[in-house]
């Protein structure tokens, strides 16, 4: 065998491959001709929702303007996604789990105005949700309400409030119960602290926590977004799980916003705005309800009323003084969560 020839061939083919690769990598989207591309950076559980909404909006936009829309979707824990946008992930729209995660995009990276939440109806939240319990079939541990979660031998699954939006809603819902039951913030802290001693794993996002509970069979109760719980109950493991509605929970408002600076840069302002407004139309609201989120349109909400139990809901603005304050008090470094989770 002639080694020189072998190596020369190897080098040539490698060089050709890399040249091809560079030319392939060169072509990536933006706005061109009669088509437009929107990057939607969203939180964990909305994958199925946008898979349903995006084609519907594309058809609507095509009919209205003749323009083709394509979507680039990115999903992850809400806090992590917010951080990525700040670090330069060029989202045209941010559809995250809670207002604070969009607030920091405004305050840290100045990519959208501080009053972004006034741009769309209902605090820019086209749907709401809440936190419920998912338990195994037959409810073997007899879990009815928050006080049952801290009984000896009950394992609770919730993601990490540091990275997950859903987990922050879980935490605050638990806090609201503790405050109501004990009459003070001190009582609430004692309750939540006890609750977290019963948590065997802290996943980084809501979807990870659901997988831990549903697929890996860990834990007795999952504190979950109502939409995740309904998805697990009706689709993933039909007949294997039950939803328990607690006596008190929290009204979760996952907001949406156009990331103004990025949309301007990409020339996608009009279509991004229309996309978010589309979420409030009856068609999108039905898709929202079918994916187990509570629609903001009262008429559609009426239609799906049987799916969503009425429950006593506390709110972030009324009971916790808004997200900026709640984030600082409970979840920032040195906050309540750090205090109770380290002093185990």
């Amino acid at each position, binding site marked *: 065998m002639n080694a020189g020839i072998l190596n020369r061939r190897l080098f040539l083919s490698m060089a050709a491959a890399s040249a091809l690769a560079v030319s392939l990598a060169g072509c990536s989207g933006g706005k061109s001709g009669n088509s437009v591309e929107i990057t939607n950076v969203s939180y964990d559980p909305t994958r199925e929702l946008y898979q349903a909404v995006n084609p519907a909006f594309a058809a609507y936009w095509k009919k209205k303007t003749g323009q083709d829309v394509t979507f680039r979707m*990115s999903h992850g824990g809400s806090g992590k996604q917010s951080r990525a946008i700040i*670090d*330069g992930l060029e989202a045209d729209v941010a559809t995250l789990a809670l207002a604070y995660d969009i607030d920091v995009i405004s305050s840290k990276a100045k990519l959208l105005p501080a009053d972004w939440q006034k741009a769309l109806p209902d605090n820019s939240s086209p749907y709401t949700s809440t936190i419920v319990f998912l338990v195994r079939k037959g409810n073997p541990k007899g879990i009815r309400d928050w006080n049952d979660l801290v009984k000896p031998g009950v394992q609770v699954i919730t993601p990490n409030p540091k990275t997950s939006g859903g987990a922050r809603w879980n935490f605050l819902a638990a806090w609201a119960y503790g405050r109501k039951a004990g009459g003070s913030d001190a009582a609430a802290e004692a309750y939540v602290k006890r609750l977290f001693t019963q948590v065997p794993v802290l996943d980084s996002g809501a979807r*990870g926590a659901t*997988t831990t509970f549903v697929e890996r069979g860990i834990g007795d109760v999952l504190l979950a977004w109502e939409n995740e719980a309904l998805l697990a109950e009706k689709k993933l493991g039909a007949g294997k799980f039950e939803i328990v509605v607690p006596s008190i929970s929290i009204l979760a408002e996952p907001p949406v916003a156009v990331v103004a600076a990025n949309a301007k840069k990409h020339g996608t302002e009009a279509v991004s705005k229309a996309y978010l407004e589309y979420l409030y139309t009856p068609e999108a609201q039905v898709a929202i309800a079918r994916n187990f989120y509570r629609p903001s349109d009262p008429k559609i909400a009426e239609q799906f009323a049987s799916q969503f139990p009425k429950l006593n809901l506390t709110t972030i603005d009324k009971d916790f003084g808004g997200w900026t304050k709640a984030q600082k008090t409970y979840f920032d470094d040195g906050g309540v969560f750090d205090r109770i989770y380290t002093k185990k």
Partner: protein
Amino acid sequence: MTRKTRKVTPGTESRTAQVLLITLALAFLAFFLMLPLIAVFSEALKQGIGPFLDAVANPDAFSAIRLTLIIAAISVPLNMVFGLAASWAITKFSFPGKNLLLTLIDLPFSVSPVVSGLIFVLLFGAQGLLGPWLSAHGVKIIFAVPGIILATVFITFPFVARELIPLMMEQGKEDEEAAVSLGANGWQTFWHVTLPNIRWGLLYGVLLCNARAMGEFGAVSVVSGHIRGETNTMPLHVEILYNEYDFVGAFAVASLLAALALVTLVLKTVLEWRFDLHSGARH
């Protein structure tokens, strides 16, 4: 692989000890390597070959496969050239800072992949050192293909060099000196003397480098932005599918990755055999 750590000479251990050790090693292998591998393939084919093929032919899966191949096709040749240059410099010449260079080459091995990813976010991210300048000039690195390539090149940096340095050190520089004294220039020496001497070692390093480039998760995950159909490599796509409860899809893509790894292993074994033959003949 025959390391004598104690004063026993090989062959003096009792027969039972040998059998025991071999059984232990085989059981360990079966449990930690074979079982998971079988699980991946059986999960992927759980619902038959049809759903498996659908999952692989899905446009997002296809673009993840394409991206992974592109990343490997760029970062592997880059690191091949770098590895060659570095080992050539280190083994054939002496210069100040040589030991420092040797240590630096190993850096990607000792740093956690997540940290390697974050380094690039800190450098090129919008809030990073070079971020504002890059964005003003319309250059996208982080959360785009260039960022993934950078992270992969960084992670796979040492493979070729680490493979070649010991080999070239062992071979010494007599052959090159002979070539030069017979009138060959540097390029001729490299092409006709050095390269043929190291070709199997080089290929072996390239294969290892390639395996890691295709399989890297941590560093790539940090810089990817996870945009479906665009910045998801195969390992990232596996995670996404798994989180969407698409287990057949997740394991189908995972089994492709595993198959790539198996091909690499077979090639590696063949090369090792050739390589042993070759270097054995030199002594």
